[in-house]
């Protein structure tokens, strides 16, 4: 079924996980930028969560002002390079391109963006520098795109920034979670180094903030605190057999995959449970890791999947088979899972109901749960007066109900994209600046 063989070395891994948005060469960028209509009030700008002046940077590429193009991008989005590669452009800027209405291929905005920013990064063109110290200090918890963007904005104005990061690497899910065929680790870390060289924020690795003591210290030592912790580990399904050895949370498994590459253990008959983008990624990744059979099984109908249509298409293209309206009842097997028992469902008044007597069993040698992520309750519970809504940190212009704390990114929006985290982190930074002025 799958067209991929199991990769046994780095070269084969790179082949199986070839970049779906490879870097444009000069000629391609020139031709593609020539097609842009330079719309008035361009809908792509509106559709970009960071509102990059897209027609401007495309025109700048076309007039061979690549530096200027990169500047236009970074002025709106500190993760301009990562976003060009990982944004779901099909539903954002490129989805809004007026060419779609003419049944003409939309401008490849993401790749053009990546072309300009990669050039700036590789040539080490610096646009920004840290402001003169103003004596203020801010602690940022979490070095994901939200935390880093917030740090950039604060450093620009001379605020001292320490980023506390639980892991030994920075950029959060950008380097640990996103599918390897969208962006390479090197690309992510190059942009991080590029930003750090301009803004000079401090990252304290292996520094998880979790105890009341940790929090007290931060509150004492800093003028404000930004929560950019993202979401937590994969939620449990609460069905029997979930603790078997070859049952993995998607986010945890993908993190291993991003580090270990071809060395990551994947099954041959994989069942992925879920219908969101993470499920699509996990299924695609299983196929590219050489699983002979990958079944994506979702409780609801295909139409009700949270995943973007193009993400499902991407999974199907690599041989993933979708099974819909089937809810898992039990993960079976002795110590390790060898099958999952399902029951068929239908949707009634928006609710999933099971159809009695329709149980069936699917064999497997690996189960991946892509059933959402928990939040960081252990941390949020210890911050006084921190209000939550629907498991998300409640904010008003990025300020939480505890005025010293600000938040942005997945922990505030519930889980969106890098581009949203980058935008929110930046504007949270602005909110912190005006709070510090008071």
């Amino acid at each position: 079924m799958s067209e991929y063989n199991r990769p046994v070395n780095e070269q084969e891994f790179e082949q199986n996980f070839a970049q779906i948005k490879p870097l444009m060469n000069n000629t391609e960028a020139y031709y593609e930028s020539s097609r842009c209509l330079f719309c008035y009030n361009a809908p792509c700008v509106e559709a970009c969560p960071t509102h990059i002046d897209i027609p401007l940077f495309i025109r700048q590429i076309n007039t061979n002002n690549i530096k200027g193009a990169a500047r236009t991008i970074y002025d709106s989005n500190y993760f301009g390079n990562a976003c060009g590669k990982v944004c779901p452009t099909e539903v954002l800027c490129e989805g809004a391109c007026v060419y779609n209405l003419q049944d003409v291929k939309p401008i490849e905005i993401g790749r053009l963006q990546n072309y300009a920013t990669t050039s700036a990064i590789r040539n080490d063109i610096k646009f920004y520098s840290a402001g003169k110290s103003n004596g203020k200090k801010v602690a940022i918890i979490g070095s994901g795109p939200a935390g880093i963007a917030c740090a950039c904005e604060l450093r620009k104005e001379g605020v001292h920034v320490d980023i506390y990061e639980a892991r030994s690497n920075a950029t959060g899910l950008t380097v640990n979670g996103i599918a390897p065929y969208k962006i390479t680790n090197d690309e992510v870390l190059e942009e991080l180094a590029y930003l750090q060289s301009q803004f000079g924020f401090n990252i304290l690795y292996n520094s998880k903030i979790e105890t009341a003591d940790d929090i007290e210290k931060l509150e004492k030592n800093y003028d404000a605190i930004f929560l950019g912790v993202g979401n937590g580990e994969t939620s449990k399904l609460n069905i029997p057999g979930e603790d078997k050895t070859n049952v993995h949370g998607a986010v945890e498994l993908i993190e291993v995959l991003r580090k270990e590459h071809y060395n990551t253990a994947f099954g041959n008959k994989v069942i992925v449970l879920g219908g969101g983008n993470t499920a699509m990624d996990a299924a695609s990744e299983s196929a590219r890791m050489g699983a002979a059979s990958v079944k994506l099984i979702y409780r609801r109908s295909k139409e009700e999947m949270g995943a973007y249509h193009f993400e499902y298409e991407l999974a199907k293209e690599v041989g993933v088979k979708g099974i819909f309206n089937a809810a898992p009842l039990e993960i079976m097997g002795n110590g390790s899972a060898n099958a999952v028992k399902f029951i068929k469902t239908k949707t009634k008044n928006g609710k999933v109901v099971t159809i009695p007597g329709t149980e069936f069993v699917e064999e497997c040698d690996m189960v991946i749960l892509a059933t959402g992520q928990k939040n960081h309750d252990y941390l949020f519970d210890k911050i006084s007066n921190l209000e939550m809504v629907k498991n998300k940190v409640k904010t008003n212009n990025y300020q939480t109900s505890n005025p010293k704390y600000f938040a942005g990114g997945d922990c505030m929006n519930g889980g969106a994209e890098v581009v949203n985290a980058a935008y929110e982190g930046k504007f949270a930074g602005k909110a912190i600046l005006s709070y510090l002025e008071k």
Partner: protein
Amino acid sequence: MDLSVNFAGIKSPNPFWLASAPPTNSGYQIMKAFDKGWGGAIWKTLGVPVVNVSSRYGSVNYRDSRMVGFNNIELISDRPLKDNLREIEEVKKYFPDHAVIASLMVESREQWHQIVKDAENAGADGHELNFGCPHGMCERGMGSAVGQDPKILELIVGWVMEVAKKPVIVKLTPNISHIEDPALAAKAGGANAVSLINTIQSIVGLDIDNFTAYPKVDGHSTNGGYCGPAVKPIALNLLKNVAKIPNYGLPISGIGGVENWRDAVEFILLGASTVQVCTAVMHYGFGIIREILAGFEQYMIDKGFNSVDEMVGRALPNINTWENLNLKYKIVADINQDKCIGCQLCYIACDDGAHQAIGLSENPEDRKPHIIEENCVGCNLCSLVCPVENCITMQRRDAGNEHLTWKERTIAGDIPDSFDDERGGGVGHHVPEPREAIAYRLK
């Protein structure tokens, strides 16, 4: 389909000729071109062999289109005359029915006499006198230096006519404000036909890093001659000016930016009876003739033309002076909402560059602009910037039964004649208050 023409006595299987330029530098190239389907060729200008520089060309690229304009600082042939003559003879041997015309440029009367005779002895079907080259040669009193001085032009044509037995074409320079003057001088001198245009004096672009222009010769540059698709509108206009000279009578060979069948048709409808091509061949090779021939023949069939002659000048009666245009004709823009893709280019073009006659919806979700008809002057800018075929069309609004021209109004004494005359066309037309431009700031 019979495409043959008889141009001032020069017979050719079709009206498509290679202009005198690098593609006609040698017998090899011309034979190859004839083999591909070209009807004639003007040999690269012959004279005393020159010395050329490198580089020689510069180009104007527009977005992803290369060489929309082309510029050269090359001179006439740098090959010995005897080699060229020998090859003319050989080409005529293999292609007796094709037109081989010698382009000539020399200085003295004696040289003109000698070279005309030599070309005819070699078998050339006619001569084209190069009074057009606007770079290098003109510094030495030849080329456009002649074309810009009708008296000298007439004198030299006279010298040529003293000995020429084959038809003589005078190639005109566009680097002049009244092309009619040299065109009439050519006729007065006895020429049998004219051709136009040669290249337009130009600087094609600068090397902004090294503070010089293109093409670069060891850090320096000079003005060159401009040609290619970008010059077609200028060539067409000059062609029209010559073709409209009352009782002119000389056949015209049209040159300048011809690349496809459509361009060729345009030149012929405007009065050319043969068409010459240089840049398009330098860009794509001789093979483009197959597109020209196929499209041209199809057009003739579709329009019911039986010969090229029937087409020559067909559009001329409809090209008028401004004062004869109908002031009562009124059109307004119409946006097809089904076709509109919401780029809003028409909106901003009209608002910033025309007459504020396009509005946007109050609802930001609705990106499709609409025409404010009472403000529309019918300039059709919007329909030109619109990227969608037939989305913005111009609709007729006058009843079609009135006709009044500026000339007629002038005769009737009904034209504005003082600065604040109420009869001015814009009087009463909607113009927003200046401060509306910054209304968002004044709030």
